[in-house]
């Protein structure tokens, strides 16, 4: 404590302007979240385990069991692609746990007194969840393709990408809401299956929704996952996607049905994410 250096002092005249920031706060916070996640590899690997297991083991086994030899590849692709609908909810809900950890370990207090919009904190977490999800999707799709699933490339992949992003926004929004409503990790984790796994069985993952009882089929049509799966298949699995969209909308134009399903996802995403931001902001001030 004998140094005599003078600390450079500047006069603060206003809130930090966007010009003063080299990087937007949401990106700074996304980078923080990713840096924390990298130091906890389990949080990357664990959400990937179940979908990869499904795609590599269960999808081929089911195909061998229930499909005719000529349709095995198509059915395996059908189920393997459905695992995306398992991966995104699991990854996003695990990402939501990070918010609870921030609250419990104190870091959230520092973020709440930072000169940034509180919505930036939620958006930063979302960006990190999207980045991790994208990485995991690549692993999942590549692994299932190596196992024998056949995917199509081309411009229609954009439907897949748009649906994946919109669905991830919905699921991450739900995760943020859960982290406010269920502030203990035990409560939170106990709610994860209901949010991330149960819808998987009613959304046309393993069989078309037309195979469900009528009333359950009606419920399936309002689940965002049903629309997301239909668009995933429409984007990279060809005809099974058109059939899935038709099972929801009953129309003849595949493009129109895809647009409608995407609009449904976007509407869900807007409502859920706006709700998440509102709830988080409210919880940040007592």
């Amino acid at each position, binding site marked *: 404590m004998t140094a005599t250096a003078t600390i450079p002092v500047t006069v603060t005249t206003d809130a930090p302007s966007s010009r003063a920031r080299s990087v937007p706060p949401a990106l700074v*916070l996304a980078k923080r979240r990713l840096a924390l996640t990298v130091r906890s590899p389990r949080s990357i690997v664990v959400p990937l385990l179940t979908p990869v297991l499904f795609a590599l083991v269960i999808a081929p086994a089911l195909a061998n069991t229930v499909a005719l030899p000529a349709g095995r590849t198509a059915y395996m692709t059908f189920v393997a692609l459905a695992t995306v609908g398992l991966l995104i909810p699991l990854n996003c809900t695990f990402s939501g746990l990070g918010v609870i950890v921030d609250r419990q370990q104190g870091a959230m207090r520092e973020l709440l007194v930072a000169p940034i919009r509180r919505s930036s904190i939620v958006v930063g977490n979302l960006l990190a969840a999207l980045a991790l999800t994208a990485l995991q999707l690549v692993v999942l799709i590549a692994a299932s393709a190596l196992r024998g699933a056949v995917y199509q490339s081309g411009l229609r992949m954009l439907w897949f990408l748009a649906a994946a992003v919109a669905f991830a926004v919905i699921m991450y929004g739900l995760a943020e809401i859960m982290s406010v409503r269920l502030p203990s990790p035990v409560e939170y984790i106990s709610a994860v299956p209901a949010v991330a796994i149960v819808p998987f069985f009613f959304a046309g993952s393993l069989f078309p929704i037309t195979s469900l009882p009528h009333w359950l089929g009606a419920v399936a049509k309002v689940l965002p996952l049903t629309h997301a799966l239909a668009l995933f298949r429409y984007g990279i699995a060809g005809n099974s996607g058109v059939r899935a969209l038709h099972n929801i909308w009953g129309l003849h134009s595949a493009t129109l049905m895809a647009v409608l399903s995407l609009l449904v996802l976007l509407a869900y995403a807007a409502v859920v994410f706006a709700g998440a931001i509102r709830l988080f902001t409210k919880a940040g001030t007592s």
Partner: protein
Amino acid sequence: MTALAEAPAVEAVELEKVYPGDIHAVRGISFAIAPGEAFGLLGPNGAGKSTTIGMLNTTVRPTSGRASLGGRDVATDPIGTRARSSVVFQDTVVDQPLTGRQNLALHLRLWGKDDAAGRARTADLCGLVGLDEVLDRPVATYSGGQRRRLEIVRALSSDPEVLFLDEPTVGLDTRVRHDLFDALATLRERTGVTILMTTHYLDEAERLCDRIAILAGGRIVACDSPAALLGVLGDEVLELRVDQPERAEATLVGAGVASGDLLVIGTTVTVLPRAHRADALVAALRERGLVLRAVTTRRPTFDDVYLRLTGGRIDAD
């Protein structure tokens, strides 16, 4: 400098917070802190200290009243006021898996100060408190003292006009507390930052603060310099442990001690003798046949100030 520079660094006017359940945490407190001043909010748990800081740093919404930092209203310009301040919390809030350097960089980026001046200031601050050697280690490997110093450097790295210290030494051992206050005194001298500190450690308030407001039940019951607050008690305190405290109290009043200079808690009677001689008061009690189990005379402390103002001990809870 703008006209705002003439405003108090921190101002609270009739600030009040009522939590759901009709819990009155803060009951209309007012104070103003001059730029560069170190101001202490002293009181036991539940006195309203942290709620007051919360209202000033925008994490608690006031029920009524207003507050400002550098003339900017915290309710209408929360981001602007947060940009002018930093908080050192009671608990560790840095990301422990990250290195000290990563934590400091994060703070600078969030406060929009990640420029050459900000980085130079941070490097100087680290040098001043001896953190250079550990900056590239994960914070989880730091000692308690290093962690607290990192939190202080982080808070000051954004060059705040106001530094809030919310019970910064709770749970720390004596060595680390001294270490921390040494760092704080050095950094305050160098940066001229305005400090608002809450604590229930009397010695801390006396050591760091130019003025102290004593809070009890959500109200400010006294506000002055440490010397002035202590000065009203005189030079000496007589502390007695007796079997019959009520009789002792009556005897002392009969001997001329003002009732306001007496406080009875259990079997302990605390007396401000003032013009009376302590040994004469003790003799008067013995003459009445009272059994004195312990007799102590000592210099007044802030605990005595607090006792006299509130009737309770500051560390009672």
